[in-house]
């Protein structure tokens, strides 16, 4: 059986579980033929799914719920990432120590293309406008890399624990010179990499069967990553067509990722879901979602996966 998975970003250890499952033949054992499509900047996985270019996508929940409100019936079928890896990283010399007081008047780097929702929620809870000015923050659409921080174009930038933070360190800035704020610690964490399909897919029992196999094999992949981060990094590297990744960086990423997947068996925890929804609903004047979503998740696939 054939399945196409659309990733949220370029080939890197963030998606090691899937690559390992493919490489180690976990999918094959289940009788699946899986194609993994790497993503990239400005590729919206939700749009690819809507266009029929993929069967399953890896997406963050805020973007998925926003798409659902826009009329694209996305359903979360599994949640391999238990924790959020998002944080805001600031230079110590910018003088920021307390998010509730020090952000006003500063420039902050934020990712857009559907990744901006957690940030907007957070700023709303802090009561900060994102339109700039004395008592708001100036938002800069952060490009592909950590340059805005290194060039001091922004006081803080968005980073992932497993990726951009490492890049900042690699660039030669010591951890002592940095201040970081994890969304997790600020109480605004939202669920990250989950697996989503269209509602209609779940009406087809054969498809559900295949998805169950897929989730089971993928989780097996993630377990493997947690146990063998270095080898997993190698596997990811083999699958990277650009040849730009380095083993050091990917190995560290695999280790950091393992911290986020730890404790997840793929089943979405309703409490986590509710926390994400609540955070998003609090989104202020331009809320990410305006009403409590319904049917945005389903356990049928994970239940089936566990049953066999």
């Amino acid at each position, binding site marked *: 059986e054939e399945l196409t998975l659309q990733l949220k970003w370029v080939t890197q250890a963030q998606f090691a579980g899937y690559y390992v499952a493919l490489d180690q033949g976990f999918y094959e054992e289940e009788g699946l033929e899986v194609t993994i499509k790497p993503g990239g*900047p*400005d590729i*919206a996985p*939700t*749009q690819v799914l*809507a*266009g029929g270019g993929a069967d399953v996508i890896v997406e963050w929940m805020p*973007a998925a719920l*926003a*798409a659902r409100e*826009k009329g*694209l019936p996305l359903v979360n079928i599994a949640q391999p990432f238990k924790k959020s890896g998002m944080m805001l990283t600031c230079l110590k010399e910018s003088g920021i120590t307390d998010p509730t007081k020090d952000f006003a008047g500063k420039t902050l780097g934020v990712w*857009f*293309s*559907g*990744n*901006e929702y957690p940030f907007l929620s957070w700023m709303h809870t802090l009561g900060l406008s*994102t339109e700039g000015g004395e008592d708001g923050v*100036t*938002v*800069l*659409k*952060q*490009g*592909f*890399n950590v*340059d*805005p921080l290194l*060039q001091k*174009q922004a006081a803080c930038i968005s980073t992932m624990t497993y990726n951009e933070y490492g890049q900042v360190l690699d660039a030669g800035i010591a951890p002592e010179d940095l201040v970081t704020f994890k969304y997790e610690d600020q109480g605004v964490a939202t669920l990250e990499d989950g697996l989503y399909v269209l509602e209609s897919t779940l009406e087809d029992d054969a498809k559900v069967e295949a998805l169950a196999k897929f989730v089971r094999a993928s989780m097996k992949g993630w377990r493997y990553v947690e146990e063998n981060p270095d080898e997993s990094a190698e596997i990811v590297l083999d699958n990277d067509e650009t040849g730009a990744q380095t083993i050091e960086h990917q190995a560290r990423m695999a280790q950091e990722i393992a911290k986020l997947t730890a404790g997840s068996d793929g089943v979405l925890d309703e409490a986590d879901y509710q926390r994400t929804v609540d955070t998003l609903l609090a989104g202020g004047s331009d809320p990410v979602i305006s009403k409590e979503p319904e049917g945005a998740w389903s356990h049928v696939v994970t239940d089936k996966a566990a049953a066999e």
Partner: protein
Amino acid sequence: MLIGLEALAGWLAILVTGLLISPKLAPVLLVWLCAWIFNTWLARFDTRLTRFLVALIFGLTIIALWEMIVRIYAIPPLILPAPSRIAASFVANIPLLWGDFVQTIVKGALTGWILGGAAAVLTAIAIDRSPFLQRGLLPIGNFVAALPIVGIAPILVMWFGFDWQSKAAVVVVMVFFPILVNMVAGLAATDRMQRDQMATWAAPYGQSLWKMRLPAAMPFLFNGLKITTTLALIGAIVAEFFGSPTTGMGFRISTAVGRLDLPLVWAEILVAAIAGSLFYGIVALIEKKVTFWHPSQRNQRG
């Protein structure tokens, strides 16, 4: 008349194959055929008004066909929104679109285009007297012009910050060499007799530059300016992908795609197309006024 019959046969063939591929296409093909026949009839008059009408009808037909196809095949709006939805989004978002237009086109593209153009013209005049520099600079210029902007953009964003200044810098880099090359060619465009005349009057360099070379270079300069109008827009928009404040057309397009607000994306594209056509049209109009004497302008009557 014979040619008319041939063309008709051709259209019938297209019609039949179209219907064979998908019978649902019948109304689409019918509208197309009617519009085409009407246009063919209209094109015969060949006046300024009918030329405009023909182009307009062609455009409207395309839009009508687009709307029909989207509806007939129920194409999801997440892939291709219908023109009616795009228009609705356009109307609903005019203040937003205006802000983006100012940020990207007025501040980014226009500033960069003017700076780049001015720099190119001055450079051309500076190297005009030195064949050595010309021979050395132009091939390298062509090489630099071939550098894909997408590669330069992140670097310039890194250098000039994320606001419109870096977009203008990208535009400067993009338009500089095409204008330079045209201007250098233009300054060399005087024929030998015209230069000899200046020599028999013992004209100093400044006079012959001002009274002969610059006027003679205008058609070439405007050629370069026209080509670069669309380049300037593209450069300013694409550069926003590599970092921008939270306004601008490139910013809006990428975030709107992320939010699956496709009608807004297309409304931005519409703004870009209108602005680009206007920009081009205005430059062409100025060209007409400035180079009224050039054969290519004189022959365009009626």
